[in-house]
């Protein structure tokens, strides 16, 4: 078959005597192959021609927004006040084991639009000179004991920080109504917003009251101390 002016492609099969003959079937197959190649070439030429004179088509697509797990907290900070026990005076925590509370309206924690488990964690109490921290202890049971029995009475450089639903002090004769959730450095279920510790419903909201009981004594003599409480939607 002629593939170019002056050139012929021949498909042959060697016979037993050494001569060769063209096979009609193979020739047809070769012609079909060449036709396919020509079609591909034509397509490429057409494509390049259209590229020189482009016609645009704007395609837009809208998708649903991704669900978001979230939590909001109000206000953004609190000052412990109305301190009692030991040498406490006004809004200043005294020793040994003074206690302070958060007055109304407390802290409002709100779950977002998607069901989520709400976790909460506390942190060390850090003095303004960044000296020796007070570490969190968790009552009379757990890995970081506040005391060996009875009311939590944090040891040297320890403090006991809790959340409850009705406010008040977390230890001593003026203790408020429980239950109290003792905070730790690692996030744990917030049983005040969701006592069952399952997932909170969309928009579920709770007012919570942080409170603290300070150490028996402090190594650091600073008078200004700071900590943090973080709620996590998980």
């Amino acid at each position, binding site marked *: 078959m002629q*593939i170019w002016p*002056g*050139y*012929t*492609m*021949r*498909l*042959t*099969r*060697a*016979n037993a005597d050494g001569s*060769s003959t063209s096979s009609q079937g*193979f020739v047809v197959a070769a012609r079909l192959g060449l036709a396919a190649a020509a079609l591909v070439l034509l397509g490429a030429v057409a494509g390049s021609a259209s590229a020189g004179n482009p016609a645009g088509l704007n395609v837009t697509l809208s998708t649903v927004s*991704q*669900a*978001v*797990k*979230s*939590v*909001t*907290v*109000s*206000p*953004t*900070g*609190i*000052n*412990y006040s109305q301190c009692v026990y030991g040498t406490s005076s006004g809004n200043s925590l005294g020793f040994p084991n003074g206690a302070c509370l958060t007055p109304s*309206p407390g*802290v*409002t924690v*709100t779950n*977002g639009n*998607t069901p*989520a488990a709400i*976790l909460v964690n506390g942190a060390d109490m*850090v003095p*303004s000179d960044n000296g020796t921290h007070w570490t969190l202890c968790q009552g009379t049971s757990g890995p970081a004991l506040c005391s060996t029995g009875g009311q939590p009475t944090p040891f040297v450089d320890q403090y006991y920080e809790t959340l409850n639903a009705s406010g008040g002090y977390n230890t001593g004769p003026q203790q408020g109504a429980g239950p109290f959730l003792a905070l730790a450095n690692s*996030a744990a279920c917030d049983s005040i917003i969701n006592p069952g510790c399952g997932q909170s419903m969309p928009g579920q909201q709770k007012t919570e009251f*942080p409170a603290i009981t300070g150490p028996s004594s402090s190594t650091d003599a600073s008078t*200004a*101390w*700071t*900590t*943090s*409480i*973080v*709620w*996590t*939607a*998980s």
Partner: protein
Amino acid sequence: MKRIQACVALVALAVGFGTALTVSAGAQANIGTGIGANPLLLASRAVPGGRYLLPSVLVVNTGSQASSYIVRVKRLGQPKGRDVPASWIRFTRTTVRLGPHKRAVIPVVLTVPKGAAGGVYRSNVVVSTYTRRRGGGAVLGAAAADELGFAIGHPSSSLWSWAWFSYLLLAVAATSVAFLIRRLGLRFRIERQRR
């Protein structure tokens, strides 16, 4: 005299209204953190020495004030599986500041070291508000967490992956066709015609 009294009353009213507005705005201020609810899971099995693009992290400021956020890997609770080393996960940004109700998308890349052990790895990506410590009291924060997970295949299993085997099949097929053509005695010949 009456005119002065009226002016004083108006000023007092304006100051009182302004104060009430400020107190009201302060009372409503809240901080919020949101994260896309889809977990960050790698669909395919990772291999040691590989680099993979994980689903991006969607961070949303659900609060009423501008906030700065930190993005990090932190295991919450005790999920089954190995802990994900934080150094394997790279966020294109680890801090972001967002206005109220604004959002940001942060791409995430997983880089598995060559010596990584096989197995299932689990952790969390946590986005939390970042607030500088004040001079007393407690700073309150909001955070949101997503699951992070992937599995690493045993290093020797990659040698027998489908891609490697498919190349072997192709080579066997090509050799067979060449052998068949030679066996049938077929020849392609291009000839120039003489005029």
